[in-house]
C-alpha cells in the first residue's frame, strides 16, 4: 500500500460533474481529492481486505444470533425494549440487507483492524462506485497510472443485482428516502434510485419528512402512495425513538437496511465482537465503558459513543490525556473504549481510513478517506485507489 502523488485531471471538476457528482466540494472544501491515490497490490486487496471483510461479516451474523437471545446484550446496546421483537422478527424472516461499509485501519503491514461498521446508513457510495471507477479509466488513458491497473470495485453491478433479489416477487415497488437538506445524502439516494431502476424496480423517491401513516397502519409517501418496501438513509436508532417508531411493527413494510442492522451499526458491536473472539486478528480490544477490563486497554485508546456518525464525539486518549476529539451531539446512550489502531495509515501528518464495502454481505469495493487528524470526520477527503498491474 502506497500513497502516490498524482497530477489531478485539469478538467476534473467537469469530469466528475458529468457523472452527476454534486458534492465534490463541501462547504468550500475539496472532498473529492485526486491529487493523490492509494496503490495496492492484488495480494493486499484479496488477503488483507477482502477476506477479512468476509470473515468479519460472518462473525457479525453469529453475534446477531447471540444478541437477539440476550436481553443483557440488547440493553447494553441501548436498543429500546419495545422494538426487540420487531428486530427479532426481521432476522428470523431472513430479511435481506443491501450494503454496508467496514471501516478498517490498515497501512500495508499486519492484519486490517476493524474500527467500526457503518452497517445502516453508509455514504461515500456513489464516489466509491462510479467516480473513482471513472477516474481509474481516465487515469490509465491519460498515462497517469499504469495501463492494466485495476480497482477493487464491482459495487455498481452488485448493487443492481442485490436490489433485484431483496424482495420476492421481483420487480417490486421500492420507495427511497432521506432527510431534506443534505446534498450528500440526496446524492447517495439518487444513485441508489438509479441502481434500483436499472434492476427493473418501480422506484420512487420521497423525503422522510413527507412520510405519512395511512389509516390501515401502512406508511405512505408524499403522494399518499402506500409504501411496501422502503430504502431509508436514516438511522434505525432515530426511527425507533421518533413518533412513528410505534407504527413500525404494524406497517407491513420491508425496510432496507433491515431492522437487525441496528445491532451492527452500534459501536457496542466492537466490544461484543471482542468478547466473542478475543484476540481475533482483525479486531481491536474493546469494552463497554465502566467494564473493569477497560483497565487492560492500552494507554492510547479511543472513546466512542454507541451511536455516532462522521466521527462525531469520538475522542482519542493517551495516558488519560485527550489528543484529539470531535464535538457532536452524541453520547447519551453510553460509550465503548477501543484500543487505538497501530496500523492506521499515516504519512506527512495525513491519516487514511479504509472503507471496505459489502453488498448483500459480499465484499466488493474499497474507498479511502483522508484527514489531517486520526479521527475521520465528515470533513475528510475522498481519495481514489488502484491495484497495481
Amino acid at each position, binding site marked *: 500500500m502506497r500513497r502516490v502523488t498524482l497530477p489531478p485531471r485539469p478538467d476534473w471538476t467537469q469530469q466528475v460533474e458529468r457523472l452527476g457528482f454534486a458534492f465534490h466540494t463541501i462547504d468550500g472544501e475539496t472532498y473529492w481529492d485526486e491529487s493523490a491515490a492509494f496503490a495496492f497490490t492484488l495480494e493486499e486487496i484479496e488477503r488483507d481486505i477482502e477476506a477479512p471483510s468476509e470473515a468479519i461479516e460472518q462473525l457479525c451474523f453469529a453475534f446477531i444470533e447471540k444478541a437477539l437471545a440476550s436481553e443483557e446484550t440488547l440493553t447494553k446496546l441501548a436498543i429500546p425494549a419495545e422494538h426487540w421483537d420487531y428486530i427479532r422478527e426481521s432476522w428470523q424472516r431472513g430479511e435481506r440487507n443491501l450494503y454496508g461499509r467496514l471501516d478498517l485501519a490498515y497501512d500495508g503491514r499486519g492484519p486490517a483492524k476493524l474500527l467500526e461498521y457503518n452497517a445502516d446508513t453508509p455514504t461515500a457510495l456513489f464516489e466509491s462506485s462510479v467516480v473513482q471507477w471513472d477516474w481509474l479509466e481516465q487515469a490509465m488513458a491519460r498515462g497517469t497510472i499504469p495501463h492494466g491497473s485495476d480497482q477493487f*470495485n464491482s459495487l455498481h453491478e452488485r448493487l443492481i443485482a442485490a436490489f433485484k433479489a431483496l424482495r420476492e416477487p421481483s420487480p417490486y415497488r421500492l420507495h427511497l428516502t432521506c432527510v431534506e437538506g443534505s446534498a450528500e445524502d440526496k446524492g447517495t439516494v439518487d444513485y441508489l434510485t438509479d441502481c434500483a431502476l436499472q434492476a427493473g424496480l418501480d422506484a420512487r423517491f420521497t423525503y422522510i419528512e413527507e*412520510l405519512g*401513516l395511512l389509516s390501515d397502519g401502512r406508511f405512505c409517501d408524499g*403522494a399518499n402512495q*402506500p409504501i411496501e418496501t422502503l430504502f431509508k438513509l436514516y438511522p434505525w436508532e432515530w426511527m425507533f425513538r421518533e413518533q412513528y417508531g410505534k407504527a413500525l411493527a404494524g406497517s407491513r413494510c420491508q425496510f432496507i437496511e433491515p431492522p437487525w442492522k441496528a445491532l451492527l451499526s452500534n459501536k457496542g458491536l466492537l466490544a461484543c465482537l471482542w468478547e466473542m473472539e478475543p484476540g481475533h486478528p482483525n479486531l481491536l480490544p474493546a469494552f463497554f465503558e465502566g467494564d473493569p477490563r477497560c483497565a487492560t486497554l492500552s494507554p492510547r485508546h479511543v472513546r466512542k459513543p454507541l451511536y455516532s456518525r*462522521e466521527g462525531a464525539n469520538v475522542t482519542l486518549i493517551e495516558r488519560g490525556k485527550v489528543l484529539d476529539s470531535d464535538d457532536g451531539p452524541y453520547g447519551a446512550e453510553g460509550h465503548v473504549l477501543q484500543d487505538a489502531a497501530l496500523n492506521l495509515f499515516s504519512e506527512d501528518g495525513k491519516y487514511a481510513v479504509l472503507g471496505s464495502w459489502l453488498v448483500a454481505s459480499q465484499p466488493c469495493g474499497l474507498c479511502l478517506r483522508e484527514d489531517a487528524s486520526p479521527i475521520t470526520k465528515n470533513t475528510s477527503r475522498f481519495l481514489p485507489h488502484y491495484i497495481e498491474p
Partner: protein
Amino acid sequence: MKRSTQIGLGAAGVLLVATVWSMTGEDPPENLVYNSLSECQTSGTLSREQCETAFSEAAAARLKDAPKFRNQNECEAQYGASGCSSASVGGAQYFIPALAGFMLARGLSGGPAQAQPLLPPTTAACPPGSAQPECQQARSSSSGGSGGTSGRSSSSSRAYSTTSGRAFSAASGATIARASTSSTSVSSRGGFGSFSRSFSSSSSS
C-alpha cells in the same frame, strides 16, 4: 478483474422525475417528461448535454412523424388555436402540431432512453372550450412552440398527445407518484425526521 466491466449511469432517462399515466387507464411505463429544453436543464436530473441531445432528437422526430396538414385550419381543428406551426418538410410547406414537450421513455430492459416528441392534446381529448385545467395549461404552454415554461409544476399534470395520436397526461419536472387508487386515508404525516432536525451533523456515515 476486481472492478465492474461497465457502469450504466442513468441508462440516463432512468432517474425518474415524472410519472405518466394513460388516459385509457392502462398501466404505463414511467417516463421523464419536460416541456422545454430549459426545464430539462434546470431540473438537474439529466446533464445539459443529455437534455440537448434529447431535445434535438425529439425535435427531429416531430418533423418526421407528426401529422402534416396542408393548411393551418385543418391542423388547428385538431390541435387547437395555438397548437400548430408551419414547417418545411422535404421542400414543401406544411402545418404541423407544435412541440409541446418531450419525453424520455424508460426502456423495459433499462436501456438508454429514447426521446419522443410530445404534441398538444388533440381536440378529442380536450374539446374546444374545455374547462379541464390540464387542457388550459397545455394549450398555453404550447403556444410558444418549444418555448419557455420554467420552474417545476410539481402539483399539476398536463395533457399531451403523441405523434401516433395517443393521448395521455403527465406531471413534469418533479417526482409525482401515480394517483393513488387506495381508499385508505392518511391519518397523519411527519412522524419521522425529528432527530435529524435536532442533530446538526448528517444522518448518514
